[in-house]
């Protein structure tokens, strides 16, 4: 295989994993914009997405679309419960306390999943066929096309939601200024609830499309969450296009470094990217620098 072809192959696989990072990064951004907190349980949502899909599809033998729908619903419900329960009940509304509550929730979800689903990694059959499609000389798995197509679909849907619907606009208003949003009569509490629910749903989708490629187990959440967060930082924290760009870029970087340098330290790359961005341009590629009000 020529170097160019190899490069192209890595690029394609990077785009595949990158698109799931983008979905995770969007989940981080949604909650950050509504509440200002980093939701550590975002990675667990992805893990749960994979786990629920395995349960519905392989154990209960439900048809694919129904299983897909039920998984999104279940994880969205868990997102909703996280907000309704721990986050809302918290006596202190300090950001760092709320962030640590999501850390606790993430550990709790992980522990519970270990008891429910055991420690063995699980996998899903690809959505359609396993025969690779040859594209410009590179082999593409049908699952990669699914992954990419679903991500594009979700991002387009979200874009419409935020720009074209009243609820979406209200959520953007909350992100811009919580107080002004409240003054104009937007039910801020409900928007925050919605942001957690949507993040849960996004995590579910990311988990479902990723599992056939990488398998899943109870402990993948931390790493996926970290990568999604790095992607969000890389693109510009809180920015939706930034999350997509950051996710894809991180996926490509990771795939290239694994293929051309060393696969053992592949997982370390996301962290290096994170630190480098924080060092040189904390606002990320597409993010705007924020002024802090005193």
């Amino acid at each position, binding site marked *: 295989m020529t170097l160019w072809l190899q490069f192209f192959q890595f690029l394609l696989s990077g785009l595949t994993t990158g698109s799931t990072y983008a979905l995770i990064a969007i989940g981080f951004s949604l909650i950050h914009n509504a509440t200002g*907190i*980093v939701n550590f349980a975002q990675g667990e949502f992805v893990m749960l997405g994979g786990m629920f899909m395995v349960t519905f599809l392989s154990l209960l033998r439900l048809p694919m679309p129904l299983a897909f729908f039920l998984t999104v619903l279940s994880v969205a419900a868990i997102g909703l419960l996280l907000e309704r329960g*721990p986050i809302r*009940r*918290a*006596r*202190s509304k*300090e*950001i*760092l*306390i709320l*962030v*640590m*509550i999501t*850390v*606790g*929730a*993430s*550990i*709790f*979800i*992980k*522990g*519970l999943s*270990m*008891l429910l689903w055991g420690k063995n990694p699980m996998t899903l059959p690809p959505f359609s066929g396993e025969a690779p499609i040859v594209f410009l000389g590179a082999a593409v798995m049908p699952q990669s096309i699914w992954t990419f197509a679903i991500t594009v679909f979700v991002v387009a849907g979200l874009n419409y939601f935020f720009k074209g619907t009243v609820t979406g606009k209200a959520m953007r208003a909350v992100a811009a200024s919580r107080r002004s949003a409240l003054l104009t009569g937007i039910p801020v509490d409900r928007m925050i609830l919605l942001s957690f629910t949507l993040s849960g749903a996004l995590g579910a989708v990311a988990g479902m499309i990723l599992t056939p490629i990488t398998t899943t187990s109870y402990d993948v959440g*931390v*790493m996926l969450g*970290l990568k999604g*967060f*790095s992607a969000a*930082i890389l693109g510009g924290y809180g920015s939706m296009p930034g999350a997509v760009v950051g996710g894809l870029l991180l996926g490509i970087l990771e795939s290239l470094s694994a293929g051309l340098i060393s696969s*053992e*330290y592949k*997982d*370390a790359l*996301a*962290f290096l990217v*994170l*630190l480098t961005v*924080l*060092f040189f341009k*904390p606002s990320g590629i597409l993010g705007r620098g924020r002024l802090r009000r*005193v």
Partner: protein
Amino acid sequence: MGKKNKISLLIYALIIFTIPAILQNNYHLMVLNVAALNIVVVIGLNLLMGYAGQISLGHAAFYGLGAYLSAIFTTTYSFPPWTTLVMAMVITGLVAYAIGIPTLKLEGHYLVMATLGFNVIIYIVMIQLDEVTGGPSGFAGIPRLRIAAFAFDSDLKIFYLLWTVSIGVLILSLNLIHSRVGRAMAALSHNEIAARCSGIDTETYKVKIFVISAVLASLAGSLYAHYITFISPGTFSFFYSIQVVTMVLVGGMGSLWGSAFGAILLTLLPEVLHAVKEYNVLIYGLILMIVLIFFPQGLFPGIMGIFAKRKIDGQSGSREPLAWEKGT
């Protein structure tokens, strides 16, 4: 540090050092020794959480760096243990400095993520770099600490060493928070902008506290390596970071005595409950959430607060806190 603290310290030390007279079971001593090490890590972390308003989810990595650096320097390069202890502390401090500089300038949760990431990376390196670290099966044959001909080779001997260090760290930290630096730190954690306006170089302070905190974790890690003489990556996983953060929160951010209490309580709790290891993760997640939701100021200060309030109520009646006292 005040008369009250000195008396408390004296009583605390007396109680601790009479324990071996009553408790002679080696396993129980070992659990207490681990508790002493946890106290060192937790006090260091509390300086960061309670006085710099920052949370690290990577203290297991600093603890692990101390342990592995000590193990590698003594066993592979045959340096004397006490020297490696200091070398490990210096190196860990430099690493913490490198991480702290970019992240501590930003809002609190960036350090949380960066340290978590660092923890994950160090864990990967411990497993992957098996020619140096022994990989997943661990690193054995670490020499014990000794002073001249006296070797710390039993749980009892090491009990006195570890608890002396642990109490020493508590004394130093109490001194630190009651010094000029400590008052600056308290101001910084209370209101960073106000602190900066009154001439406190908040960024430098935050980085310094982070480095001190990492160095203390490294010290505990080195002592652990020379005590157990065998280390493996599992001990230094992300979960240990969660455990120590939970200990700080249970004891209360900013309360050093609380840290000692939190560390002892949560180290002994699984032993007392005979908890199945499988449930450990679940239980810690639950404790972390419940403490943060209902006692954000910490379980220890929370309980003390209930008693203190009753006393005040009985004496002169309580008053409503003023608006500025509630904070924002």
